[in-house]
């Protein structure tokens, strides 16, 4: 094989985002940015009651308002289907199966759609619409000792047990037994969910903001009983997703209204509606019991995680799952349980399971280290498993300790005085903490097409989604290497269901799955290109489908890993916690684009700070209506909360991936909240087992510690 000496390998070289110029000039058009003639505007109306039945919808006065075109509700909406399983193996999201019955299972349930000529008219009419309900008392009582809690398998088995837990705990020299809680959290991508739908030449066309256009097409086609080829979904630029941008009420509402009115209709969720319609991470109550011998070697590990789901669909937040990967013990019991309440259905949110689960588990490890008188990193080193603790399978690569070593060196961990409450800076108490991170590395089947154009450039078409991950740029780099050309000669087109089935941007699998398919198509194309031959005007196209190759991956424990380090300052007068610095070192496969990968890791760590200190959604305990449902009431970290963070990685190519990718979207948040919480303990000597670590909690805990 000949290689062009001046051709630099693109993968592994920093590259600014290929669509970056469009994004800094405002030229990039997102879902709600496309003009249409005759565009009508839909505004959703949500239930104000927490449970009941719709008795009547007073459409008359609203239909008489200026510009109002229609009011859709359960009494007049087209019938759609919801009795199927989507490509992600779950039924459609309950609030997306719009207006099919009169039941209201929770506050914020969509009960009507008002469509008008302008957004102002639609909004006023939606707010004027009177809906009568027969109210029933909602069940909103979430607590650890619910008798009706039950184990539920999500994408993982609910329960995994080996060994005699009580016997091993009884025989342990040191035992940690603690309860941890995390609150309801919301994705809140900066771009609200938005979709515009219209019928064009016999096809339903949807301009959308989603994490996978072929996923959305398949759901809409099934709902509306259409041939999948009769629906096209495009989603070129997506203003963040984090798990929330699947099929939700807005696309279905837009499609329904466009069908009824036979004109284009756009539906955008308001920020307030997103608290009910966009999904969320459910609160959790977790119990961790660890038993170890005098040297800190685990004999018993129990992690139970309980979360509330809705009464209309089970969603389990598998917080107990990380323990099955991280640490072994003779007795190893993990369980994920749910209890059904009159709340909106939760969904995947950045590192589902791992984010809240790692807070509990990695805090408990820190408590165990304290009790054993061991350094927290040494404790983890002593419990490093050789095989999957539950599966018994080999790891495809587990560079966790290498991450800790590199992180400790760069963070200056060796100089740390392990005793809490020793460092002070004026009124601030200072402390440092660490925690481990892991997230599954997976891939999903995808198809891709790569075209050699007559002008010597290449066009890649794949149903990928760039939700801010840098996927478009990463695919460009992978394609350039596979085609033995430069990134400048490769044009990547994504976000169009007409490009064929592809994995979603989710579960940290997107870039890996798409790169695999693009590489395969590019290799096929190179075989077909005859050197020196002229390329016809329509180009030469090669296609790939990775279904078989992905399915042939041998069973193994496949994960990204990382070590998180945080330094915090705690104001003893106000209870305020400030993160002063943070470092994350990751072993997360081959890094395709160092520039955007760093951003993604740092973004995950910012989420960790936000989770540790700020985020907490509150519901009215009598109705379930979200309280303070806006970005002033629901705090996410902003500029002033985020110091100079550092993220870096060690060489860790996945041996079984054609490019060596593992996936980096989620591991950055995992363990980050625990590292902050462990640092707060080190600063103050007080454990915080309930997130977020609010100033009032810090002050109360300090007062209790003084009186203890």
């Amino acid at each position, binding site marked *: 094989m000949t290689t062009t000496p001046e051709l630099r390998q693109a993968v592994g070289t920093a590259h600014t985002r290929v669509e970056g110029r469009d994004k800094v000039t405002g030229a990039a058009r997102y879902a709600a940015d496309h003009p249409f003639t005759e565009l009508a505007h839909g505004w959703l109306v949500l239930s104000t009651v927490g449970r009941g039945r719709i008795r009547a919808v007073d459409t008359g006065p609203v239909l008489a308002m200026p510009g109002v075109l229609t009011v859709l509700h359960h009494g007049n909406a087209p019938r759609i289907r919801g009795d199927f399983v989507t490509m992600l193996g779950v039924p459609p999201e309950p609030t997306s199966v719009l207006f099919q019955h009169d039941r209201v299972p929770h506050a914020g349930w969509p009960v009507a759609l008002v469509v008008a000529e302008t957004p102002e008219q639609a909004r006023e009419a939606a707010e004027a619409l009177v809906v009568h309900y027969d109210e029933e008392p909602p069940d909103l009582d979430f607590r650890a000792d619910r008798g009706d809690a039950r184990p539920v398998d999500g994408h993982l088995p609910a329960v995994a047990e080996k060994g005699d837990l009580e016997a091993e705990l009884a025989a342990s020299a040191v035992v940690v037994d603690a309860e941890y809680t995390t609150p309801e959290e919301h994705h809140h991508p900066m771009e609200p969910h938005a979709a515009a739908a219209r019928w064009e030449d016999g096809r339903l066309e949807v301009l959308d903001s989603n994490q996978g256009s072929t996923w959305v097409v398949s759901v809409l086609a099934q709902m509306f009983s259409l041939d999948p080829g009769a629906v096209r979904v495009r989603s070129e630029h997506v203003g963040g997703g984090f798990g929330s941008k699947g099929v939700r009420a807005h696309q279905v509402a837009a499609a329904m209204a466009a069908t009824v009115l036979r004109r284009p209709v756009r539906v955008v969720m308001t920020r307030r509606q997103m608290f009910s319609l966009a999904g969320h991470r459910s609160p959790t109550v977790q119990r961790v019991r660890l038993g170890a011998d005098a040297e800190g070697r685990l004999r018993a590990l129990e992690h139970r995680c309980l979360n509330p789901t809705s009464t209309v669909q089970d969603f389990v937040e598998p917080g107990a799952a990380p323990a099955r990967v991280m640490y072994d013990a003779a007795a190893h019991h993990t369980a994920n349980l749910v209890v059904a309440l009159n709340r909106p259905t939760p969904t995947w949110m950045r590192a589902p399971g791992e984010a809240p689960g790692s807070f509990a588990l990695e805090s408990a490890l820190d408590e165990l280290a304290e009790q054993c008188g061991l350094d927290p990193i040494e404790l983890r080193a002593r419990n490093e498993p050789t095989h999957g603790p539950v599966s018994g399978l080999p790891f495809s690569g587990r560079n966790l300790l290498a991450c800790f070593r590199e992180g400790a060196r760069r963070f200056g961990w060796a100089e740390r005085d392990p005793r809490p409450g020793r460092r002070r800076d004026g009124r601030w108490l200072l402390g440092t903490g660490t925690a481990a991170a892991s997230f599954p590395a997976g891939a999903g089947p995808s198809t891709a097409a790569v075209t050699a154009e007559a002008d010597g450039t290449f066009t890649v078409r794949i149903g990928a989604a760039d939700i801010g991950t*840098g996927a478009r740029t990463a695919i460009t780099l992978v394609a350039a290497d596979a085609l033995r050309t430069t990134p400048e000669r490769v044009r990547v087109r994504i976000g169009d269901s007409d490009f064929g089935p592809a994995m979603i941007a989710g579960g940290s699998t997107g870039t890996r799955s798409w790169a695999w398919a693009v590489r395969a198509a590019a290799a096929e194309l190179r075989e077909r290109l005859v050197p020196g031959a002229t390329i016809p005007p329509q180009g030469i196209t090669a296609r790939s489908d990775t279904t078989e190759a992905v399915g042939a991956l041998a069973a193994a424990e496949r994960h990204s890993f990382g070590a998180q380090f945080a330094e915090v300052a705690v104001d003893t007068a106000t209870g305020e916690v400030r993160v002063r610095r943070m470092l994350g070192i990751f072993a997360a496969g081959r890094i395709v684009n160092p520039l955007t990968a760093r951003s993604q890791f740092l973004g995950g760590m910012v989420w960790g700070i936000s989770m540790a200190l700020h985020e907490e959604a509150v519901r009215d305990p009598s109705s379930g209506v979200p309280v303070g449902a806006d970005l002033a009431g629901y705090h996410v970290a902003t500029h002033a909360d985020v110091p100079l963070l550092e993220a870096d990685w060690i060489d860790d190519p996945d041996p079984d991936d054609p490019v060596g990718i593992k996936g980096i979207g989620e591991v950055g948040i995992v363990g980050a909240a625990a590292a902050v919480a462990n640092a707060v303990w080190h600063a103050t000597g007080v454990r915080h087992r309930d997130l977020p670590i609010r100033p009032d909690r810090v002050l109360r805990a300090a007062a209790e510690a003084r009186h203890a």
Partner: protein
Amino acid sequence: MAAPTFSAITLHVNGEKHTLTVDHRTTLLDALRERLDLTGTKKGCDQGQCGACTVLVDGRRTVSCLQLAVAAEDREITTVEGIADGERLHPVQQAFLDLDGFQCGYCTPGQICSAVAVLREHAAGWPSAATADVRPEAGPPPLTDEEIRERMSGNLCRCGAYVSIVQAVARAAASGQQAEEAAA
């Protein structure tokens, strides 16, 4: 019959004059996006809490979702589409691009408009909550990272690109300083 709820107004946006009839309830944000097809300005919350809709009104940053279009008549409005000098990016835009000061890009127009105004406010000697010496005669404080963070805190970025945004603003400030020194 109720009083008319529409008015004909003139908006000056990015150096161009637009005459249009708007519903009195129309925000400047919606007028820009829905009427003038200037969709670079984004709607993140429609409540003045996220900063995605930040534009410059008579040179000062303003959340356009809390401004009615009728109240913006005859003011000079600059949106993200008007920040660059033709094909040449503004130093703030260039720094965002080079240093990856964004991920999904949705908050970016607001961050960029805000940053352009921050540099002007700082140069004009405006203090912030992070400024140690706020006496007028003290002049502009050093534009530390802490100053940038404080001054940019009205612009949320859910992707968490803050570290790179602060570096981009600092670099743009430094390049502006260099340009001034070269001109002097």
